[in-house]
């Protein structure tokens, strides 16, 4: 097993820069999730690690070996593809055994390893089938099994769950996480789904527009986003933002924005103008909680009831904020409502760079 390192990696297609100056270290045995919107360069980064794309500049290392010019099959990595890429004319057994046969592993050992993987993934009864006779979830497990039997240094997973339905996705998410913890093989997992990233990653790398925006544990990335992009991308419903002018007042600050005028106690050292980031749970209906700053009046735009909790979309002079409400809500779109902000949970960003202000 081995860690993975990207050192100043660039990828250009003609004049398009898919990845810029990527520095990322994945430690041995870690599950690193690279997350970002489409076109953020996350899949390109993974494919460079796999050897499927050339590297324009910089170095990619697996263990201590620079693999820039090493062929994919020499890198000792195994990859799970979004469309599974199972060999359609071969049985499940042959699919699993393919990589081992190419590496001249003795027959007895192949059978044993395939059997073990099949048990682990509960696909023992499918070994004689062809991929065309499998359901999506089964094909997905076979694809995982094909990577698993190889016992590679690094697992690479390119959006492996995006073709599954919601229920199966949640289930498989847990299963992949469990498997990875069992075998402790370094894993780089690419997804556009921030829920997947939050639930699976030991650490998360957030990419946008070819640039790595932040690396950290799910908690760090959620609680202390490095910039406005990360703050808005991680978390569901997303963080809401509004512009505010800052003045000092009574040992705290007063935030004045369009339709907002609140006093936040025990907060200092803010520049004169900021972008305020509000997670849904940092905005509560006025009167339900004490110690919140407000009130802020607004109009209800939507009500998203999830059963145990409800998110109320509130329009405040053109900005839209998601407000948390426990249980079911009696509010209707069009109602006027007042809410307040939880002072300690507010996040501030510089208006020009978008960088977080601590």
């Amino acid at each position, binding site marked *: 097993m081995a860690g993975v390192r990207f050192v100043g990696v660039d990828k250009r297609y003609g004049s398009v820069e898919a990845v810029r100056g990527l520095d990322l270290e994945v430690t041995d045995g870690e599950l690193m999730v690279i997350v970002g919107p489409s076109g953020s360069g996350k899949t390109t980064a993974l494919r460079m690690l*796999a050897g499927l794309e050339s590297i324009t500049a910089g170095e990619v290392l697996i263990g201590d070996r620079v693999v820039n010019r090493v062929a994919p099959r020499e890198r000792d990595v195994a990859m799970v*593809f*979004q469309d599974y*890429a199972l*060999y359609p004319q071969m049985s499940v057994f042959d699919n699993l055994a393919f*990589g081992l046969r190419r590496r001249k592993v003795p027959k007895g050992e192949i059978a044993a390893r395939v059997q073990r993987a099949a048990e682990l993934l509960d696909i023992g009864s499918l070994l004689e089938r062809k991929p065309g006779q499998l359901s999506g979830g089964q094909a997905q497990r076979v694809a995982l099994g094909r990577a698993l039997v190889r016992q590679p240094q690094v697992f690479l997973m390119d959006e492996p769950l995006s073709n599954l339905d919601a229920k199966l996705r949640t289930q498989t998410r847990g299963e992949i996480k469990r498997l990875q913890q069992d075998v402790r093989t370094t894993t780089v997992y690419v997804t556009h789904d921030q829920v997947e990233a939050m639930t699976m990653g030991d650490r998360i790398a957030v990419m946008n527009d070819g640039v790595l925006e932040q690396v950290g544990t799910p908690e760090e990335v959620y609680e202390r986003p490095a910039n406005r992009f990360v703050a808005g991308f991680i978390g569901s419903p997303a963080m809401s933002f509004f512009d505010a002018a800052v003045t000092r007042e009574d040992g705290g600050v007063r935030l004045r924005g369009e339709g907002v005028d609140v006093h936040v106690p025990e907060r200092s050292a803010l520049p004169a103008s900021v972008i305020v980031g509000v997670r849904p749970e940092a905005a509560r209906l006025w009167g339900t909680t004490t110690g919140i700053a407000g009130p802020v009046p607004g109009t209800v735009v939507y009500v998203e009831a999830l059963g145990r909790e409800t998110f109320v979309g509130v329009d405040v002079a053109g900005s839209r904020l998601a407000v948390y409400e426990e249980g079911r809500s009696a509010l209707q779109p069009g109602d006027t409502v007042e809410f307040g902000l939880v002072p300690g949970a507010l996040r501030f960003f510089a208006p020009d760079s978008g960088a977080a202000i601590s």
Partner: protein
Amino acid sequence: MTSRRELTLTYVVLGAFSLFALAPVVGIVLTALQDPDGLAAFGSFNGLHPSNFADAWRDGNFGPYLRSSVIVMVVVVAVASVLSVLAGYAFGMMRFRGSQVLFYVVLLGLMIPTEAIVVPLYYDYRDAGLTDTYWALILPQIGTSVAFGTFWMRAFFRTVPRSLVEAARIDGASSWFTLWRVVLPLARPAVLTMMLLLSMWTWNEFLLALVMVTDEGLRTAPLGLSFFQGRNQTDLTLLAAGAVIVATPIVLLYVFLQRHFIRGMLSGAVKG
């Protein structure tokens, strides 16, 4: 949902077209079976006289002609198919400098008609001492067949998911192994269709055979049929029997492979 009237209309139109296509074929077979001493008329029926085929076979010397045709066809189709699969794989699945330009050069072979090159080709082959040999029939047809075959196989390979090839690469398979064991098994309908088309075109090639060979032992079936026609202008029955003899092998091949042929024609047309 198609209404009953629409369905009937569909069958009527399709039926009419089928009749239109089949009539000449049935006509020539019936003509070939007519009484050789009776009054020959195209398509009319006056009993079954299969002896006409034996007469035509003997008079027309079709044995050696068919043998030549088979030799030329088998070699051309076999060699051209292997080369086309290799070239199509490279053009369809590999990224390399100049692939676009090279592919257009290959396509030129598809666009230039034999008529345009047959005369200079004749002089080149004569200078090389290759006229009046099988090579003169085989080599130019491999050239034109590879142009089409490369085009055809490239189109197929481009429909194969890239991830399949990438998975094989990561799993440790060489390009060569990936082609023969991973991709080609999927290409069976496309390859068989290509082979069938190439067989038909090679079998029916006339001009090249006319220009390149004078030796009767090298004559191919269509050329032989043409000479046979010249000698038996008035004997409609015998001519029809000769035509049926020359057409039969390729028709049998088509019937044998038609299931794959239709699948091959459809592949790429709709996402399977």
